[in-house]
């Protein structure tokens, strides 16, 4: 059962090495500089004036061809990214063109998503694999989901929001005690973070290789996404001080790396079917 994973990791490392070469990424993106701002609050407003102080960097979105299933032609071609910090929080603004807002999840419909990846511990001589890290070199991945944003903005949808004429004689949670009804609630009964957003449209994860992505027990990341006129503007914000040993330690004046991934739900992108952007140097100004 381990064969595929080992193979995928080897290929992943090979692709990472190849990704550093000019044939994959012709023009490496310049460093992303996060200016230091005043204040102590999380910065999660995509329309905030503070973004004018950050220099935008355009990152090229690459096809995911390392693991299966692959995505030979990513639907999003490039993203504009900015970063700011205030010594307590670092915040990223991601902007990309998407003609369709996809935040409805039914069996053949997928949601728009974007993710920011940081090394857990950055060693410039031994950067983690940008493709989900490696077992001995973990990464932190913060993923924003349009469906979670819809939960927060408009409320968690019910069955009739998707199927207005849906009918069911009786739902178990209408007649059973909550503890008994849990048996009929699938992922909700096991407290999976997938069913709906709680406080934030962003989930914080750790990963150490393909298939290892795991939602962290403590969720301290926040954010907000707005779709307007064929464009997503999404903010992902995290505390700079680590809350646990699998959180990146970010300090003013420090350097690290940042990578990105983006999914076009309308183009059936989900999971490994995604576009990704390689490591970009991230400088947190003093």
């Amino acid at each position: 059962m381990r064969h595929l994973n080992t193979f995928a990791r080897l290929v992943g490392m090979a692709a990472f090495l190849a990704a550093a070469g000019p044939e994959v990424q012709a023009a490496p993106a310049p460093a992303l500089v996060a200016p230091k701002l005043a204040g102590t609050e999380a910065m999660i407003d995509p329309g905030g004036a503070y973004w004018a102080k950050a220099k935008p960097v355009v990152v090229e979105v690459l096809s995911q061809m390392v693991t299966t299933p692959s995505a030979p032609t990513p639907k999003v071609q490039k993203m504009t990214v900015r970063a700011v910090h205030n010594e307590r929080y670092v915040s990223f603004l991601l902007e990309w063109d998407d003609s369709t807002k996809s935040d409805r999840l039914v069996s053949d419909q997928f949601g728009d998503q974007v993710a920011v990846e940081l090394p857990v511990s950055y060693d410039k001589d031994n950067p983690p694999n940008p493709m989900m890290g490696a077992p001995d070199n973990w990464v932190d991945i913060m993923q924003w989901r349009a469906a979670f944003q819809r939960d927060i903005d408009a409320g968690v949808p019910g069955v009739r929001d998707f199927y207005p004429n849906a009918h069911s004689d009786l739902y178990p949670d209408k007649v059973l005690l909550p503890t008994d009804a849990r048996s009929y609630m699938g992922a909700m009964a096991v407290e999976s973070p997938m069913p709906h957003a709680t406080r934030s449209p962003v989930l914080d994860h750790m990963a150490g290789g393909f298939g290892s992505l795991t939602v962290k027990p403590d969720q301290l990341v926040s954010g907000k996404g707005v779709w307007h006129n064929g464009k997503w503007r999404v903010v992902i914000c995290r505390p700079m001080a680590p809350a646990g040993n699998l959180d990146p330690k970010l300090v003013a004046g420090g350097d690290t790396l940042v990578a990105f991934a983006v999914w076009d739900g309308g183009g059936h992108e989900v999971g490994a079917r995604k576009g990704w952007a390689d490591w970009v140097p991230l400088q947190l100004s003093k």
Partner: protein
Amino acid sequence: MPKVYNWQLGREMEYPYEGTRSKRQFAMVMDLNKCIACQTCTVACKTTWTSGRGQEAMFWNNVESKPYGYYPLGWDVKVLDKLGVQELVGNAPYKGKTIFEGAPDGERVLGYLPDDLDYANPNLGEDDSFGKMEQGVHLTGPHNNWMFYLPRICNHCSYPACLGSCPRQSIYKRAEDGIVLLDQSRCRGYRECVRGCPYKKAFFNMMTRVSEKCIGCYPAIEDGRQTQCTITCIGKIRMQGFINTPDKAREDNPIDYIVHVAKVARPLYPQLGLEPNVYYIPPVHVAPSFLKQMFGNTVEDAMAAYRKVMDDPKLLGALLLFGAAKDIVHSFKVENDMAIGFNETGAELVRVPLREPVHLRPAFDEKYQTHRTNIT
């Protein structure tokens, strides 16, 4: 990809993981000659497992008509069309491609994602017969105009495509009984299993935003009982138990006897390469040309064996144990015209006469000086 041995194909084949056989393999036999599509199995499953929010159109067990019924719409013809024309599975090793071997570059299996509306009409095509009914036709065998009912659950395959498709290893096959389960904590709702399973028995729940599938009634299995769909079947068309590979077949295991010894039941679409573990006794009134595609080239042998069931008391006994006990029949024997089923410890569960006793009564009752009405 690693190579695994698929006994249904008689050869090794590619699979995303190394093959490890479970200690026991969940299996079911369904007699398609007896199914009347009453949907009691469907309702039993639905009320037991899928009455929650987001499961409204989800049927882990369904019964569809063939040739024109599907759930979801067109599932098998779409998969067969994608795989292209292949050799049929027969006595010799299968020469065609499986859905693992036919996977496009960058994919783990050859699959497709059904449209949401494909799940909306589970009864479409119900009872529609194949062929045109001409004036004056009458029944012949096999029938010129035929249809049959096909009850379906997850096949708890030896080489599941849902498991092979999942990039997160959220789906696993239990070592103790071969039941294929989807970890509700690990799944992130990518729907690779929904794409990958050719039988379309993995489903997306839009309320929990992750996928779900038939759990083989594992709490019942762990307790020595057969599945809900089996014990509620009023036509007694099903038997659930465990199957061995042909080289380890036990003649006293009713499922081994039916599948490996009498060879009267066949897996569904074995050419896809999953080694499915639901076995069907083909309907003997249906054109073999159609059944060959579904059950393999040797389906006529199974039909012939079924027609001669009265010549094989052991096969008759095994078939009569269908629906006779709620517990799993691990072994059986035929003795003094009785089929006797035993549980795992060897304790007797049930005995069924090979022939129902018949009492003949004269049409005229001398005692009461009256004619009897022929009622039952």
